[in-house]
């Protein structure tokens, strides 16, 4: 066999820089807590820096909420619940949520620029995915507010009270929308905490909430790290905890609410199988694999991080995959052409690098695309490992970065067994042109979301949530209402 023919990229015609302008973006030097409709200084008197992971420059100082601050926020939320929100007609409640949706749409550009600056995600994704989906979520749930009885036949659904919500750093605004929109639509008030590395768009959302004229205290926004989150979870006057984050922290939260009447929704980790059969539309499958693992730098709980290729098409798929990886542009998140942005934080980059080392030590073969990386900031090239097995750590553990582990399989039964051989069960992907095989696979996957001939699709009408240790409860769609209601 001769050397296989190779395609050459990036030698003849390269894109010129196309930076999204950061003018017209209004960022304060310092952000205080948003409690009871007012911007208040933290009782902790502490502020922390939030940095741009692509430049390592400080963007703003942000208030760190301690137990006292959280208590203030919960009191404000309770007061708003008792005095205003629970007395408002459902239709009026919905109209406030519609206003939020509209205001996000109007300020979409500002939201997406700040989201990219604060989190390192590429502007293409914050502009085309995060922000429009966040607005769509508010728009969708707004309409549910006065229709809840139709969602739960023979029941008289009632709000829980004050919802404490803790969101991750991978989709800050979008996760806030996933949490706040259904909570408000069902008549609850909210105390929400942003992630430590990505607090800014939540405070921008606070500005939107202010200009929407939402009654003070209905949504309270705080920032801080784990201790702030613990203060919310442990507050006796919180009726509901909704958390998105790691399985480890999810378990700590679940233990903390034992013996209380707090309801919980946990949206936790994953290690999703993405399965490609020989009869799949291979070129689209390759695109789905890319989108499955490299979307948002792989900082996605439902990322398709375990690829299973049927042995007969292994070489073909891998060659296509490598060529597609070569055409990915890694670098400045603010450039409209960048496909893969900055890793969210130094800490996360350390974790990813550790796993890459583990993969190499376990004897796996690594392939990375050959692009240049910027000098400053936190970066990781899109990476894939072959020669791995079910027993490899990079196959079992969630990496939360742009690292794909590739295995092969021979039969349907074999791949079903391997795909389900995980404590996680958030999502899965199946690629085949044969309908009956699709339904066999989709029904046998122990996962809350199964993408057939597609991957990483999201929609406000579509419920999202896991089986097993990927958590419980659903967010999105009709099913996303139930976790915020007593039926």
């Amino acid at each position, binding site marked *: 066999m001769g050397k296989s023919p190779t395609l050459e990229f990036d030698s003849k015609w390269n894109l010129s820089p196309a930076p999204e302008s950061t003018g017209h973006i209004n960022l304060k030097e310092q952000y205080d807590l948003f409690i009871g409709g007012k911007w208040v200084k933290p009782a902790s008197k502490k502020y922390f820096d939030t940095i741009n992971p692509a430049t390592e420059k400080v963007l703003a100082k942000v208030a760190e909420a301690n137990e006292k601050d959280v208590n203030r926020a919960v009191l404000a939320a309770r007061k708003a619940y008792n005095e205003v929100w629970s007395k408002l007609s459902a239709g009026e409640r919905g109209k406030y949520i519609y206003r939020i949706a509209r205001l996000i749409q109007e300020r979409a550009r500002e939201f997406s620029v700040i989201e990219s600056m604060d989190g390192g995600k590429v502007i293409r994704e914050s502009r085309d995915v995060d922000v429009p989906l966040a607005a769509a979520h508010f728009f969708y749930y707004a309409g549910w507010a006065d229709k809840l009885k139709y969602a739960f036949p023979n029941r008289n659904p009632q709000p829980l009270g004050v919802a404490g919500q803790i969101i991750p750093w991978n989709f800050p605004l979008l996760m806030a929308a996933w949490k706040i929109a259904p909570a408000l639509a069902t008549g609850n008030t909210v105390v929400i905490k942003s992630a430590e590395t990505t607090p800014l768009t939540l405070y921008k959302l606070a500005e939107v909430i202010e200009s929407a004229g939402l009654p003070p205290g209905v949504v309270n926004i705080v920032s801080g790290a784990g201790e702030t989150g613990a203060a919310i979870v442990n507050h006796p006057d919180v009726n509901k905890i909704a958390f998105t984050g790691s399985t480890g922290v999810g378990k700590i939260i679940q233990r903390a609410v034992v013996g209380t009447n707090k309801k919980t929704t946990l949206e936790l980790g994953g290690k999703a199988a993405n399965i490609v059969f020989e009869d799949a539309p291979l070129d689209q499958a390759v695109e789905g694999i890319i989108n499955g693992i490299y979307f948002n730098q792989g900082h996605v709980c439902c990322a398709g991080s375990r690829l299973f290729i049927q042995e007969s098409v292994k070489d073909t798929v891998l060659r296509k995959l490598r060529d597609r990886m070569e055409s990915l542009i890694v670098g400045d998140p603010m450039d409209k052409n960048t496909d893969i942005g900055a890793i969210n934080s130094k800490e996360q980059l350390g974790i990813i690098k550790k796993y890459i080392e583990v993969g190499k030590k376990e004897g796996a073969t690594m392939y990375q695309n050959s692009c240049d990386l910027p000098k400053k900031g936190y970066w990781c090239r899109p990476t894939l490992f072959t020669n791995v097995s079910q027993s490899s750590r990079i196959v079992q553990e969630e990496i939360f970065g742009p690292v794909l582990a590739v295995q092969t399989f021979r039969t349907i039964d074999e791949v079903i067994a391997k795909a389900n051989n995980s404590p996680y069960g958030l999502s899965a992907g199946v690629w085949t042109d044969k309908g009956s095989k699709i339904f066999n696979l989709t*029904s046998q996957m122990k996962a809350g*979301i199964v993408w057939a001939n597609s991957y990483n699709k999201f929609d406000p009408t579509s*419920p999202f949530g896991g089986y*097993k240790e990927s958590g419980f409860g659903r967010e999105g769609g009709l099913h996303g209402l139930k976790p915020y209601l007593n039926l």
Partner: protein
Amino acid sequence: MGRVEIMKTYKIYIGGAFPRTESGRYYTPMNGEKALGNICLSSRKDVRNAVVAARVTHNKWAGKSAANRSQILYRIAEMLEGRKNQFIAELILQGSTKSQAAKEVIASVDRLIYYAGWCDKFSQVFSSVNPVASAHFNFTAPEPMGVVSIICKEESGLLGIVSAIAPVLAGGNTCVLLASEQRPLCAITFAEVLNSSDVPGGTVNILTGKRSELIEHMASHMDVNGFLYCGTDNEEINTVQQLAVENLKRVTISPLEDLLNEDHNTPYYIDDFVEMKTTWHPIEKIGATGSGY
């Protein structure tokens, strides 16, 4: 002298068989001064064996057509109806009045019939086709959760069991249940009903014994997906909730007060032990969206 009566030996029910507890131990619950019999004091190994049986059987039970599950639940009711008098006698033996016992047995039959009807209907009530904005067909439908541990209501010999397992079975789950400690007789007789009702062995596994010994093992087992606690003991509830965190079991606390009340006839009890799965698939639309064909 009258005839020497034959005493019934009460054994546990695992994988469709009636073994004695592997521990060889027993206890003797009392109704006042009267001993009810020698009842198996199940051990953690019995729990282990029961979970294995429930797991092995899960695909078989969940894989049956919903219509078939419905008929099997209906069959259980038929068999129970046929043995009404035996259950009434056992309930009286355990302290019920005659009219209470009769009501409880009839209510148990009716509750089974109620849930039998839901088997092939609840998923229609709880499913949705979701109108996503992209060119995809998207639907959400319930799937069985898997293996469910059940602590049955202490105060009820039969209706407590039926009310707990009927929705769990209707949802396509298999289960391991611990019977009432002081009123265990009907649980084992009910196992005999199950055993003659086309229910695959291992779908329902019934243990007797002490909650204090078994509850931890039922709550901490890593291959159990859900936990139904019927009762109000806060200490036990806390134990269950703590241990369930280990593999994030879905825990439902259900006081099941006033068991005869028809409020306990509800598909929302089935909804407690299902997982919602959302499936996406592209829809080819020539020339409909974007740059089209």
